[in-house]
C-alpha cells in the first residue's frame, strides 16, 4: 500500500514538473481495495483494470520501473511507450491489461475467466472498475454471461462516489441497489469499506473462496474515497463538488493511516515504519531517475506491432 502511495506521490510531483505526457488518473486513497483484493490472489490468478490502474498493477506485483518508463513514454516501458498510464500490463505477474473506455475491461476479464474455465484451470480472474463504469450496459450483460457460464471471476466495483465529478444521486434513483441488481442476475454480492484494508481483505477472501470452490462469479463493492482530482495531480476541493468526502474526512479515513495505527498498536515501532518508508521512497526515486534517463523508442516503432 505504501509503495503505491509513495509511487503516486512521486509521479504526481513529476507530473507537475511537466515530465509526463501521458494522461494520468491517480489512485491515492483507494489503495486498500487493490491490496486487500490482491493479497487473496495467487501469482497464476489474473487481474485486469481500467484508466486508474497504477495501484491494481503494483498490488499484483507489477514492475514499478517498467510502469514509470511507460508513463514517460520510454522504450523500456511495459508497452514500449505505446500504451501509457491507461494501459497497464505485466504478464509476468498476470496483470493482463487495463483499458480506459468505461466498462470495456469487464467483458475482456470475463473472457479471461472463460478461458480458465474452458481449460479447467485452478486460477481465477479479478477485474476492477468504478461506480461510473458499472453503469455501462455491457457490465449488466457480462454479469449475466458470467453467471450463466459459471465463470471464475471476481468483479470489484470501486465506488469512490463520483463519475469524474458527477454524484451518485445525479446518476441513480434513490431506490437504486447494486446488491439487488447483482444478486438478481445470479452473482454473489458483498460490500466492503474500501478505506479499510482489513475489511476489503476479509470480504474479498470470502468471495474468492467461493469462486475457487466452483460456485461461479462474485462481486465486491468497495466504498472508497478518491483523494485527488479525477485526472490531475492535485487535490480538487476548491471545485466544491465534494460533500461527504471533504479533505478532513478523507485524511481521517486514509487507509494507510489506518494500517499504520494498527501496526503501531501491534508493537511495531514508529522508527521501523520510518525506515520502511525511506527504503520505499529510495526505490521509487531510483526507478524515476532510471526512467528519466532511459531512451525513447526508435521512431520506426511507430509502424511496428500493428499485427502480431
Amino acid at each position: 500500500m505504501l509503495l503505491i502511495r509513495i509511487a503516486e506521490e512521486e509521479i504526481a510531483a513529476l507530473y507537475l514538473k511537466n515530465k509526463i505526457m501521458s494522461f494520468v488518473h491517480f489512485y491515492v486513497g483507494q489503495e486498500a481495495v487493490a491490496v486487500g483484493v490482491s493479497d487473496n490472489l495467487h501469482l497464476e490468478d489474473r487481474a485486469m483494470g481500467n484508466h486508474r490502474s497504477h495501484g491494481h498493477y503494483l498490488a499484483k506485483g507489477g514492475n514499478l520501473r517498467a510502469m514509470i518508463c511507460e508513463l514517460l513514454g520510454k522504450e523500456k516501458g511495459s508497452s514500449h511507450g505505446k500504451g501509457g498510464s491507461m494501459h497497464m500490463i505485466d504478464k509476468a505477474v498476470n496483470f493482463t491489461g487495463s483499458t480506459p473506455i468505461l466498462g470495456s475491461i469487464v467483458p475482456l476479464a470475463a473472457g479471461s475467466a472463460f478461458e480458465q474455465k474452458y481449460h479447467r484451470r485452478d486460477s481465477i480472474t479479478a477485474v476492477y472498475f468504478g461506480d461510473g463504469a458499472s453503469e455501462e450496459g455491457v457490465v449488466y450483460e457480462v454479469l449475466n454471461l458470467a453467471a450463466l457460464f459459471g465463470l471464475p471471476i471476481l468483479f470489484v466495483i470501486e465506488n469512490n462516489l463520483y463519475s469524474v465529478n458527477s454524484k451518485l444521486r445525479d446518476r441513480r434513483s434513490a431506490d437504486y441497489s447494486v446488491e439487488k441488481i447483482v444478486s438478481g442476475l445470479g452473482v454473489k454480492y458483498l460490500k466492503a469499506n474500501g478505506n479499510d484494508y482489513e475489511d476489503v481483505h476479509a470480504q474479498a477472501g470470502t468471495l474468492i473462496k467461493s469462486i475457487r470452490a466452483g460456485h461461479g462469479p462474485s462481486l465486491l463493492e468497495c466504498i472508497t474515497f478518491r483523494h485527488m482530482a479525477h485526472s490531475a495531480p492535485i487535490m480538487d476541493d476548491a471545485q466544491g463538488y465534494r460533500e461527504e468526502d471533504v479533505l478532513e474526512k478523507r485524511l481521517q479515513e486514509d487507509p494507510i493511516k489506518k494500517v499504520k495505527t494498527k501496526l503501531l498498536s501491534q508493537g511495531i515501532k514508529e522508527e521501523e515504519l520510518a525506515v520502511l518508508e525511506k527504503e520505499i521512497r529510495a526505490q521509487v526515486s531510483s526507478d524515476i531517475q532510471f526512467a528519466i534517463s532511459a531512451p525513447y523508442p526508435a521512431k520506426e516503432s511507430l509502424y511496428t506491432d500493428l499485427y502480431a
Partner: protein
Amino acid sequence: MPEPRILKYTDALREATDQVMEQDANVFVMGLGVSYSKGADGTTAGLKQKYPDRVFDVPVSENGFTGMAVGAAIQGLHPIVHHGRVEFALLAMDPILTQAAKWNYMFGGGNPVPIVFRINIGRQWGNGPQHTQALYSLFGNVPGLKVVIPSTPRMAKGLLVSAVRDNNPVVLLEPRWLFQITEIVPQEIYTIPLDKARVVRKGSDITIVSYGDGLIASLEAVDLLEKEGVHVELVDLVSINPIDWETVFTSVNRTGRLMCVDTTNEAFNVGSEIIAKVAQSPTIALKEKPISLATPNVPCPTSTVLTELYYPTSVSIANKVLTLFGKSSIERSLSFEELHLAPTVMIG
C-alpha cells in the same frame, strides 16, 4: 480423382468451421442461435452435436459476448464469433474496433488477439434500412484489423480457414446476397491468403475493381461487355484491410482505365479509396477519368419499386463502361428475380 463437389457459400463456411474445429481444440464458436440445427443460416449446422462443449448460444448481449470472446482470445483461445447482421455487430464496436484491433499495438507487441468475427452484411430483399447496411468501409478504416470479403464459396472456405489460423483479429464480412451461390470446392482443408487480391478475369481495356456481391454483378457485366468487344480485367479485392495495392496498380497500369463497383453508399466507400490512391500514384497514367459506381447516398428502402433503382446491376455496370468507350448502351430489362432475389448461380 474424387468427383468435383459443388457447395453453396454457406455450406463452404460450415465445412471450413468443422475442419478447423477438428484440428484445433482451442477453436470455439459463439453467437446467437449458433447451436440450432440450422444455426447461422446453416453455417454452424450440426456443430453443436459434434462439439457439444465448443459451440455456445448466448444471450442477446452483443457487446458482452463479443467482448468476452475477445478476452478469451487474449488468453490464447481462438473464438469464431458470429453476428447475423452487421447492425447487430454495431452493438459490439468497442470490443472489435477499440479493444481487439488495438490490443497488440497498444501493449507494444507480443499480445496477439487471435479471433474471427464472422459478420453477415448487406442486401437482402424486404429487409429495409436497418437490416441491409453495407458498412464495409467502417472496418477498412481501423488499423489492426484484417478485413476480408469472400466473394465465392471456394474463397469463403479458404479465407475462413486462414482467418482462424491467423494470430490477429480478422473480420470476415459475408455478403448475405451470396449465400445461395455455388462453386466447386475442394473437400480437403486449404487456405487462401488474407491479404492478396485476385484477378478474376484477364482483360486489356479497363480494370474493374470490386468485392463481395458487387463482384458477382461485375462478373456478369464482364460477360455482357465481352460480347460488345470490351475486354475487362476484373479484380476481386478480397481484402479491404490491408488493400493489396500491388495487384490493383499492376492491373490499372496495364489497362489505363479504372472503374470501381461498390454495393455500399457512394460516400467514403471502398471505390473512393481505390480511386484516390490510383490518382496519386506517380507511375499510373489513366487514359480516362476513373469511375465509381455505388448505391446512392440514402438508406436502402424496402419496396422493390425503390430497391430496383438502388443497386448496381450487370446491365448498369456494363452500360457505364460502354459509355466510357463511346458505345451505345445495352437495352435489356432484368427480370424481377434477377433484380430482387439472391443469385443462385454457379461460379466457374
